[in-house]
Structures are given as structure tokens and as C-alpha cells.
């Protein structure tokens, strides 16, 4: 389970006047066995929020907990229990897939014998046999993505976070990832994924929070979102939501 209460993050500049409120008072709750989507256009604060959950960044305000562990005070306990896959993360290109999994397994403190067994299982589960012993710099984008997913799940985390993980993938590779997200949900894991693609949300999410300019402009079930917004397609509903948020923000600014 992930709990966020009034979480805020400001990127400060040396002069102070250009400070950016990347995340502003965001609250939500992700339950185990459900897929939670974080939806928002580029620069809405999704990655910053996920980086705070994965303890890479610290919030300036509010409270963030993963499985009851505080993301700031008990960051190591949080990291033991999460798997974080981000579109910007790369692979050590001189290492093979197997060596990559071995290395990350060691960083997670998995004993050698267990790790070997786990890698064998993952090779089968994610269909990595063909390229597991090839340098990751010499395999295709889709194959790399599968290695990265295996790397994320090597320690069997209870909470899995995917940050724009389908970016750059072809249709088949993206579908493979979507299947994995579903499998994680079915295994009772807490799944949180961020995207700016409305179609993915409609396909996968049970719950959704929409971020825009760091603010939370919607939080609820995907069904409620479909019903509450005007528009023929999901994309139209999403754009409608953003435009409403923008006009509200303008009114707010004018009243100040």
C-alpha cells in the first residue's frame, strides 16, 4: 500500500523568485491488488512524485508511506519493498542480462543460491532465454525493456512502480509490459504507474489521480472519471479536465 498525504515538493533556485512547485498538496492511496494510475501531461509532476515514493527525492511537505514505512525516515525499508522502473533508467551495456540480474540481486542482498534460482525462474517467466547471456548493449529495445522489468522484480517487491515505462516501446513490447502490470496486480502487489497516455489508463487502471502543473486535479476511480467528464473519447475527456483546471487556476490567480 502507498499513502500520500498533502505531499509537496519545490525545486528551489538560487535566486528564490523562480522556485518551481513541482508537486503541490497531492494525496492518494494505492491499495494492494489494484492498479493505480498517475496521469498527467509532461511536466505535471508525475516523475517527481514517483521519485519521492521511491526515496530518490525527499518531499518538502506532507507525508509519504509505503507499506506503513515512512519514505524519508525509513527509506531503506521502503527500498527493500519496492521495484521502480523508469523510462529514463538505462542498463549497463557491457554486462549481459544475467550479469545485470546478478548484480541487482546482490544490491538487494539476495543470497547467491537463491539468486541463481530466481534468475532461472525469471528467464523462463519473461522469456529471456534467447538473449540473457548477450551484452545488453547489443539487444533490441524490447529485449532491453524485458531485462529491465526482470531487474525491477528480481527481489519480488510488494510494491511496483512504473514511470512512463512504455515510452519508446513498440506496440508488442508495450503490450508485454501491460501484461506484466496485470500479472503483478493479480499476484496481489500494489501497482502504481504513471503515463500521459489516456488509453493505457483506460486499459489498466482501477484508480486514477490526474496531475497538472503539480496539482492534483482529479482523484477517484476510472469509471467516475469517464462519467464526470464531457467528451467522446478518453483523450477528449482528459483534455477537457486539463482545460477546466487551467481556467480554475487563472481565476484563482486573478482573485489573488
Amino acid at each position, binding site marked *: 500500500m502507498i499513502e500520500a498525504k498533502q505531499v509537496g515538493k519545490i525545486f528551489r533556485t538560487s535566486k528564490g523568485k523562480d522556485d518551481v512547485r513541482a508537486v503541490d498538496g497531492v494525496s492518494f492511496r494505492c491499495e494492494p491488488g489494484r492498479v493505480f494510475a498517475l496521469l498527467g501531461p509532461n511536466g505535471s509532476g508525475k516523475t517527481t512524485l514517483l521519485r519521492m515514493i521511491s526515496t530518490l527525492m525527499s518531499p518538502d511537505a506532507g507525508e509519504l508511506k509505503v507499506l506503513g514505512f515512512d519514505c524519508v525516515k525509513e527509506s531503506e525499508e521502503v*527500498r527493500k519493498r*519496492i521495484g521502480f522502473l523508469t523510462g529514463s*533508467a*538505462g542498463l549497463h551495456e557491457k554486462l549481459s542480462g544475467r550479469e545485470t540480474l546478478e548484480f*541487482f540481486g546482490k*544490491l*538487494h542482498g539476495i543470497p547467491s543460491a537463491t539468486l541463481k534460482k530466481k534468475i532461472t525462474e525469471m528467464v523462463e517467466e519473461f522469456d529471456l532465454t534467447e538473449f540473457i547471456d548477450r551484452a545488453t548493449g547489443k539487444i533490441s529495445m524490447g529485449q532491453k525493456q524485458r531485462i529491465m522489468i526482470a531487474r525491477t522484480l528480481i527481489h519480488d517487491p510488494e510494491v511496483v512502480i512504473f514511470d512512463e515505462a512504455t515510452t519508446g516501446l513498440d506496440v508488442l513490447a508495450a503490450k508485454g509490459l501491460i501484461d506484466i502490470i496485470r500479472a503483478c496486480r493479480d499476484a496481489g502487489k500494489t501497482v502504481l504507474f504513471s503515463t500521459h497516455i489516456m488509453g493505457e489508463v483506460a486499459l489498466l487502471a482501477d484508480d486514477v489521480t490526474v496531475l497538472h502543473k503539480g496539482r492534483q486535479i482529479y482523484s477517484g476511480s476510472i469509471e467516475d472519471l469517464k462519467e464526470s467528464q464531457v467528451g467522446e473519447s478518453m483523450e477528449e475527456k482528459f483534455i477537457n479536465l486539463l482545460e477546466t483546471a487551467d481556467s480554475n487556476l487563472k481565476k484563482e490567480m486573478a482573485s489573488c
Partner: protein
Amino acid sequence: MLAVMWASLKKEIREVMRDKRTLLLTILVPLGFYPAMSLMTKDLEQKQSAKMSERVVTIAVSGWEDDTELRMYNLVDSKMAWKSAESDQMQGLLDSGKVDVFLEVEKETVEGYDQRKVKLHYFSTIRGTIAYQDVMVFLTALKTAEVEKRLKGKEYLINPIEIIGAENHLTAREISGSKYGGMGAYFIIFLAFTGCMAVAVDTAAGEKERGTLEAMLVTPASFMGVAFGKLVFIIIMGLISVLSTIGGIVIMVIGYGGDSGFNLSQVGFISLLGIAVLLLALVLFFATILFTFSILAKSNKEAHVRSSMLMIVVAMSLVYCIIPGVELTKSILWVPILNAAMSIKALWGGAMPLADYFQVLVILLVLSALVLLWISRKVNADREKVLLKQ
């Protein structure tokens, strides 16, 4: 084709003109390198020659019972100081540095006229060689004056002063040290730096840029654990570079067929061990500095530029150790990198005081520890800014 080429060239120029660091490295640094080097070496040369001109050559003489002529000469040229000594004092006086040249004189009388056979003893260091040359000039002048005096008096003409030889009292090791020590230290240290640099940039800034560091940071492993692993790796690569350089020197010596005058066995086990420990400390210093530079860089390119600038600083400071006459002074002991280079040179020649050696070692270790402490504090205080790709 030409239009595309021109557009491409224009775009590259536009980009580079906005990249201050690249401009600094490719234009300003090369532009300033030689003038700066020439200013530094000129200043050093001036100081050296001023020191030499002020210096008094001390000469000890044995067997010249009445050295009035010598002392008279001393009156007109204050650069020379004379002292009487016995032959058995020779080695002690030369070793202590109290005497630059020792003259061993044997007097013979032929037809009632004195003839002196002179043998010179000296160390072929820069200082010793200059002193030796000064004494040779003096003896030739003295001999000419004596010959002229005898010719005028129509006296029996016999060679009044005959130089029967000159003996260099430096050991083969000391000669090797003064001949190869500076150059050897220069290349070993410079290549140790480039060895560390080759991997430090990629292992820190490269991992940050590729996003692999971020993947490691979301594991329970501590960053300091990961960082120390990387640091040890950089040190190993620096040491491999050192060993390869030494291997290259050995190949060069074999190539000369042993005629190069270079023999590593002359240096001795203890001194070699001392050099090895010093190199280890120096590689640790390089590794911490380069790792810090790289991890603080926002991109791989920035890390490369920073390291290249540091490489230029290292190369410039190392030039001092190959300039003839520059010795390990108390002030040089405090200059990191140069102090190690001068110490290696001194160890090579067998003239390194133990206290100075430990001072250099401690300075390098303390500086490395301080850099490590600083970067670990910086990471703890601003983890996001330092470790994450912005």
C-alpha cells in the same frame, strides 16, 4: 550537398559557441598553456641561476702545504671558499655536502721546481658538476699564470699543475636517480592519472547520465557502499596503469640492450617499496579527486572537460620535477602531486629523508580523506541534486 554541409557546420559552431567549457578547453587553455609554462619555467630558471650566482663553491684541498695562491685567488673571486683537509676526510666531506669539490694534490720537485699533480673528486649532481667546472677553470687559470711567471723569470719550464684525473663519487644508483628519476616520476604519475581518469568519468558521470545510477539508488544498497566499490575500481585501474608504465620502461631498457644505464635493481627493495606505497597514496588521491569531479558533473561531457582541465594542471605541476636542479625543498613537500613526484625522484636516487617521506604520504592520505569526507557530506546534504540526472 554543400548547403547541408554548411548548415551542419553552422549548427555545430552555434552550439560550441554557447558551450563555455569546450571553448575554454579548446581555445583558452591551449592558448595560455605555453605562455604560462614558459613564465613558470623562466621564473624558476631565473631563481635557479640567481641561486647559482650567489652560491659559494666550497673546495677542500689536501697535500697543498701552502695554499696561499689558492686563498689569494679567493680574494678576487668570492665565489670560492677553500679549506685544508686530509685525504681520509674526503668521502665524509663530500657526503655531508660541506664540500663541493675535493682536490687531492701530490707535490713533486723536478730540478728544484715544484710540480703539483691534482686529482679532482666530486659528485656529478647539477651543483657538483657546476662546481667541478668552476674548479677546472680556476686550475687552468692558475696553471697559465704560473707558466707565464716562470717564462718571465726564464725559469725551468715544467708543467706546474697537472690534472691527473677526476673521480665522480656518486654511486650508480645516485647517477640513475639524477638521470632518470625526474622523467620516470613524471611519466609514472601522469599515466597513473590518465589511468584513473579513463574510468572515473564513466563510472560516475556516465552512470548518472545513462540512468543506471538511479536504478542502483532505488535498491537498499547504500550509495557509499556503491561509491567505495567504484573508488577501489578506479584505484585498481590507476595502479594497472602504473604497472604498465613500469613494464614499458623495462621493455625500453631491454630494447637498449642494457646500455641505457638504467637498472631498477640499483634502487633497492626498501626504496622500491617506498615508491610503491607513495604511488598507492597518490592513486588514491587521484581517484578521490576524479570521482568527486565526475559525480558532481551534470553530464558526461562536463566530467570530461573538468578532468581534462585537471590533467593539464597535473602535467604542468609535474614539469617541475624534470627541470634540472630542482630539488625536494620544504615548500615543495606541501604541494600535492609535485611532492610525490619529487619524492619518487629522491627515493630513486637514494636521497629521501624518512621524515619528509612520511610528511608527503600523510599529506596525500589526509587530502584524500578530506575530499572523501566532503563529497560524502555533499551527497548526504543534497542527494537529489548530486546523484540524479537533472
